[in-house]
């Protein structure tokens, strides 16, 4: 006799632990593949996993096996024209001697590269592995006013609006079964007896039993369908909620000096930042501000692709950012991040204004403000002004330079790497 067992509902992913261990073991390789991927991928293509290639030698599990050489005899199937005593030239592959297949299976995986797919989630895990959002502690200490109601089981009293119908009816049913059990048993017996009596034509006992049945039925009916004891209410508890929404301001210079290539690099940087924030916050909004001599809030498409020419006044963007924060994103409710990308050009008189704006009105409300300068040339006035800002606000402000595509992830990594809580 055989047992047949349905195991389809058993736990999934029995191999998760082993898979995890494998990934941990080859972290170095995987991280390299991941950061390569970030720099090589097309810009819109961050939402998928990544293929990781590890050299076969590194993952192989060595065992003793025979190497080539020596003398061996092999039997093969499918002879067509050979007869005993034939001599065949050695060929490197395919021929009856060259690729002895029995050997191939013995020697294991050989030196093929080991290729596998990381899921999107794992990809991001590795990508942001040792990165952290700066200044989160500060926000937590400030305390915050937002709360969330969470379901926390059921209770026997509450307001009618929170009545849980399903639970109440369950309780009612249970009570009715419990209270009427005895009566129903008697009823069943009486009905059977009456059946018997009517078959035998015993009218007297039939009538007596009918009376009894009526009585029992009334007794059963008397048990109320719904009692106050049955009522169940959903219980909700108020939980303080860490502010879990973030807004990211992308500021970009679109003056004539910014060509498409520079914009692409800026976009990659923004994209990384966006993915990074998205992993930390339930809700992440983005505000795109572009500027030449005047700043304007635009949508993504326009932000990256429309062309403008003209001079550059950086402070216009900062002013606009400040206005938007005041109008829509109260610092009590939002974690605010700013990222500015530019090629470093600015109208000279404007740079001190920028510094003032940053120090006085923007840095106090944001979690972090990062400035990346995408240029291969020497720094100009803006960078020098910002250097002073960085000195006075080392926690909330940072600036870096990006010269080519390969620098992007490195700079990003540098900006957000975990700092010791000194």
């Amino acid at each position: 006799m055989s047992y047949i067992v349905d195991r389809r509902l058993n736990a999934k992913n029995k191999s998760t632990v082993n898979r995890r261990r494998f990934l941990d073991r080859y972290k170095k390789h995987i991280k390299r593949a991941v950061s390569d991927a970030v720099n090589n991928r097309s810009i819109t293509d961050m939402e998928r996993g990544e293929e990781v290639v590890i050299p076969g030698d590194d993952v192989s599990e060595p065992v003793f096996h025979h190497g080539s050489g020596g003398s061996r005899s092999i039997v093969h199937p499918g002879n067509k024209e050979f007869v005993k005593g034939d001599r065949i030239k050695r060929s490197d592959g395919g021929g009856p001697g060259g690729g002895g297949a029995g050997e191939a299976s013995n020697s294991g995986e050989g030196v093929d590269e080991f290729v596998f797919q990381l899921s999107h989630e794992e990809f991001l895990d590795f990508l942001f592995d040792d990165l952290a959002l700066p200044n989160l502690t500060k926000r937590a200490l400030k305390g915050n006013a937002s709360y969330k109601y969470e379901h926390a089981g059921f209770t026997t009293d509450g307001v009618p609006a929170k009545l849980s119908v399903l639970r109440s009816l369950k309780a009612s049913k249970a009570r009715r079964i419990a209270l009427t059990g005895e009566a129903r048993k008697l009823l069943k017996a009486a009905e059977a007896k009456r059946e018997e009596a009517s078959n035998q034509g015993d009218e007297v006992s039939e009538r007596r039993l009918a009376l009894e049945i009526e009585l029992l039925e009334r007794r059963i009916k008397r048990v109320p369908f719904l009692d106050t004891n049955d009522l169940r209410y959903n219980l909700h508890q108020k939980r303080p909620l860490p502010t879990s929404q973030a807004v990211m301001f992308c500021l970009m210079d679109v003056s004539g000096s910014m060509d498409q290539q520079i914009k692409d690099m800026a976009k990659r940087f923004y994209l990384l930042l966006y993915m990074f924030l998205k992993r930390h916050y339930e809700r992440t909004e983005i505000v795109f501000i572009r500027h030449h001599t005047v700043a304007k809030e635009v949508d993504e498409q326009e932000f990256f692709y429309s062309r403008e020419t003209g001079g550059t006044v950086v402070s216009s963007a900062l002013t606009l950012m400040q206005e938007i924060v005041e109008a829509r994103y109260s610092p009590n409710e939002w974690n605010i991040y700013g990222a500015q990308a530019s090629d470093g050009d600015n109208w000279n008189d404007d740079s001190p204004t920028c510094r003032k704006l940053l120090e006085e009105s923007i840095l106090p409300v944001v979690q972090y403000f990062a400035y990346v300068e995408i240029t291969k040339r020497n720094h100009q006035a803006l960078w020098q002004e910002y250097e002073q800002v960085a000195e006075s606000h080392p926690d909330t402000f940072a600036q870096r330079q990006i010269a080519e595509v390969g620098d992007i992830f490195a700079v990003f990594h540098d900006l957000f790497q975990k700092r010791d809580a000194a």
Partner: protein
Amino acid sequence: MSNRQRSPLCDGSDWTFELIETFDQEIGRIAESFGLDTYRNQIEVIRSDQMMDAYASIGMPVGYNHWSFGKQFVEVDRNYQRGVMGLAYEIVINSDPCISYLMEENSMTMQALVIAHACYGHNSFFKGNYLFRTWTDATAIIDYLLFAKKYIASCEERHGVTEVEEVLDSCHALMNYGVDRYKRPYPISAEQEKRRQAERAEYVQRNLNDLWRTLPQAQSIHCDDENVFPEEPQENLLYFIEKNAPLLEPWQREIVRIVRKVAQYFYPQRQTQVMNEGWATFWHYTLLNQLYDEGLVTDGFMLEFLSSHSAVLIQPGFDHPGYNGMNPYALGFAIYSDLKRICQSPTDEDREWFPDIAGADWLTVLPAAMRDFKDESFIQQFLSPKVMRDFRLFGILDDDKEQEIEVKAIHDYCGYRQVRELLAGQYNLGDREPNIQVVRVNVEGDRSLTLEHTQHRRRPLGKTTDSVLKHFHRLWGFPVTLESTWQDEVVTRHHCPEKDSKEADKDAA
């Protein structure tokens, strides 16, 4: 045939649990009428991802955790996702009750095929074959694996995952050298194992006496010099390490032991691939045909079955791009089928080659051919000229001292015996795996250990030798040397840790 009028068990390709049960009963009834002796069956229906899990843990239903299983899983997963590889239809575990997995996606025909193949074919092989009977204990294996899993998990908790992983890595590298081929093992039992292990740990605790360590180290002098340790060369490297490695902690020895026991469990499978698969294939073919003869399955069922059956039996020729050695299913099935033919309608050739078998009752000949052989002896004994002709087998000699490869024998009258011998030799474990044994341990001096590789037909060791030696060194804890010898002359030496070149030169001189 006799009761053709019975109506088919199912019509259509969807399976239900009732249908599986009915099929199992019918197939079981027929198997019994053929005299197949099996363990009880436990049929488990699983999803394809669970099948992948089972795959990744090399078919162990409960496996300890190790990254290499994760690697396996990642590989299987990837190949499956890309459609490079279909999943096997079945996995069967040598245990009592014998566990077979059926995949949810299979059609009813495939489920019936798997039931016949695994639950009755493989199952009866596990129960009957002498290698399985001596080397594995079907009733204890699941318990033992469970014990192993728990034990290794507890070691990880106590000593850290990396520590345990390192020991496991090293043991896995030597896993093929965990069996005494010429001694009979004791059956394993998880209960005993646990008790024994607890006793041993307690003994160590009780005898741990710090005073001993303060005594001057002079006791070893009484060893007389002629005594070589070990007295005889040891082929079971893992056992040797478990018992003799000087520096291993008790828990590390226990892990060595676990890997050795698991290796022992898989040892018969490595030696009976052709026989085992051939036997199972032969029986699913016979059993399902019988079902058809009794009118229990439809023509459509048979067509689907036959197409899968023949797909399994494809044997591409040596010059075919898909050629990957002999297909064990095809070879095994052909030998068993031909044995049946020899019994039922022998030709003159068969009478000459198999005088004992020709015309005998196939229901006694076949089980005997399954019971008392392993691949090597099975082929040597039962590969018939007809099968050699059908496969068009030919044997070649590839000697690196010769310019060309020589065809030694083909499937003709004067070649049959030699082809058969060569093919059987190919399934000899010694031909497949290098023969490496522990020959000397320097007990008095630096405790260095010497391994000897006796070359099989001048075949040298492969490239990974040095890395395996590192693993051996990690377990042994003292210098390890591997000497590769041919006709009692040392051809190459490998050292771990590597000696600097001067010393090595002196060594070679």
